């Protein structure tokens, strides 16, 4: 893990300029994303999390500081295409990122950009569509798909490029609960296969599944650590107008009524397991 990081961000400063005014957005961000890691970035609107995400594959370039993807500096133009192949990005609006008029052509778009030979493309498109469960929709036009399906196609288009890292920039925020589940399942599986995931999200339950959570506030990193370390800081989070996952809220109320119960559980499964332990454990004692 401590070997060369997949993405390294060092002292990143960035400002937007419009109509002669300058708005600082990122002020000194330093972070690393390791191979195969799942990092969640949270923060309320305007904290700079989407801007940070757009630096990870060189869509935006730092004013000061630098971003390296496996040692390649995003400011060097000649590396840009390779950087974008390695770090793929899925955006918020399912409708605004599909380019082609049929699904398979869209998945092939990135491959065409990489000048992949046509003979090889067909296989890679098929594999990518299978990985996101959309092979039956191969010949369909995008406007016949649901939001969740469009997002799966978008992910497929990136997978076909065989990336090392998938950046999800609020990729589930426009979806209904069903679509969100579809996407999270796909992402979980990809992560299991060794692809690193950076997810910028508003959903605390999504963040709770990450290996590491980064909380942004006014362009700086306010908190960083495992979900447990971060969500434990309730006061600071609520000051930043951020929630704790529902599972965490329930756990702390149970803890309040029954102090033996842990109050730092944030995933559904964790909570359910804990309840099992508490109840079944007692059952055994009773029997014994």
């Amino acid at each position: 893990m401590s070997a060369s990081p997949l993405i390294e961000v060092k002292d990143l400063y960035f400002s937007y300029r419009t109509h002669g005014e300058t708005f600082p957005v990122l002020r000194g961000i330093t972070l690393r994303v390791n191979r195969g890691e799942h990092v969640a970035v949270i923060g309320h609107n305007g904290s700079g999390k989407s801007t940070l995400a757009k630096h990870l594959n060189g869509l935006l370039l730092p004013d000061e500081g630098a971003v390296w993807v496996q040692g390649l500096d995003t400011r060097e133009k000649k590396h840009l295409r390779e950087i974008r192949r390695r770090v793929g990005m899925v955006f918020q609006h399912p409708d605004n990122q599909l380019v082609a008029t049929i699904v398979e052509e869209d998945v092939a778009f990135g491959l065409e950009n990489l000048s992949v030979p046509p003979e090889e493309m067909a296989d890679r498109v098929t594999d990518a569509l299978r990985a996101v469960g959309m092979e039956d929709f191969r010949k369909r036009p995008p406007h016949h798909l649901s939001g969740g399906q469009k997002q799966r196609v978008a992910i497929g288009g990136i997978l076909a490029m065989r990336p090392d890292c998938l950046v999800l920039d609020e990729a589930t925020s426009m979806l209904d609960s069903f679509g969100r589940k579809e996407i999270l399942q796909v992402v979980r599986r990809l992560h299991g296969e060794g692809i690193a995931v950076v997810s910028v999200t508003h959903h605390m339950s999504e963040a709770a599944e990450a290996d590491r959570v980064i909380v942004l506030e006014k362009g700086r990193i306010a908190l960083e650590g495992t979900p447990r370390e971060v969500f434990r800081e309730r006061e600071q989070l609520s000051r930043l107008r951020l929630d704790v996952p529902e599972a965490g809220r329930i756990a702390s109320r149970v803890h309040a009524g029954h102090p033996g119960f842990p109050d730092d559980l944030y995933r559904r499964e964790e909570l359910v397991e804990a309840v099992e332990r508490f109840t079944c454990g007692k059952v055994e004692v009773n029997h014994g």
Partner: protein
Amino acid sequence: MREPFLTIRNLSHTYMKGTPLEHVALREVSLEAGRGECLAIIGHTGSGKSTLIQHLNGLLLPQSGEVTVDGLHLSGPKPDVKALRRKVGLVFQNPEDQIFEKLVGDDVAYGPFKMGYPLQEVRERVRWAMELVGISFDEYKDRPTFALSGGQKRKVALAGVLALKPDLLVLDEPTAGLDPYSRNELLNRIRELNRKEKMTVLFVTHNMEEVATLADRVCVMAEGRVAAEGTPREIFGDTRLLAEHQLGPPEAVEILHALHRRGHPVNPGAYLTEEAAGEILSLIRERE
């Protein structure tokens, strides 16, 4: 006996009747809502929800069956659509897209001006509507619309409909795509409209958290039919129903369902955080 505010009886609707693309959207739907009630309609894309709500505003007229809003019948040969639109305010998905005036005050005033009210009356309505959604009239009426944040734009669009002072407010996915902070704020505003201003509210949603915070009653739609109806507690408590229609319940409910599946005697309909914690506590205490 008091007549309900909104009555829908055996409403059916078929798109493109008599063509190869014929598509049945509503089949014999019957539904009622009392004055001052808050009714949620949930279901998947294509379940007929949006076809249903378009009937409430005369955008679609009943092909068969009846729709009555506050004594106004819409099934006759020449229904008074204009009168209906004064009674019913319809807020579409992503209503901020429909903002077209340069200044906030003008956009909110568009509806009242179109209805032919005098300036004085329009101003009062605009002030009332803007304050209701939590946007200060004096501060914002002359602001350019493009300078607003996403959450503010949505509130302005909502105010634009409220300025018509409808008795029935119909919302399609009111909080989709908003960040959690704006979402909570908007939900609180809608709840106030319902509870304090006694406005009848009907909203379509995929989001069960929204149902949990707002609705008095829930109607589940599937394939153009009303599949189930009841209080949120009844609907969330019905494990089979939720699974059958693939409705992602609030997280608390999901946790309780998981415990329920493992044989714990919990009531899975307890969807509020405290209630869920209470259920778990009593589970633990029971075993002691």
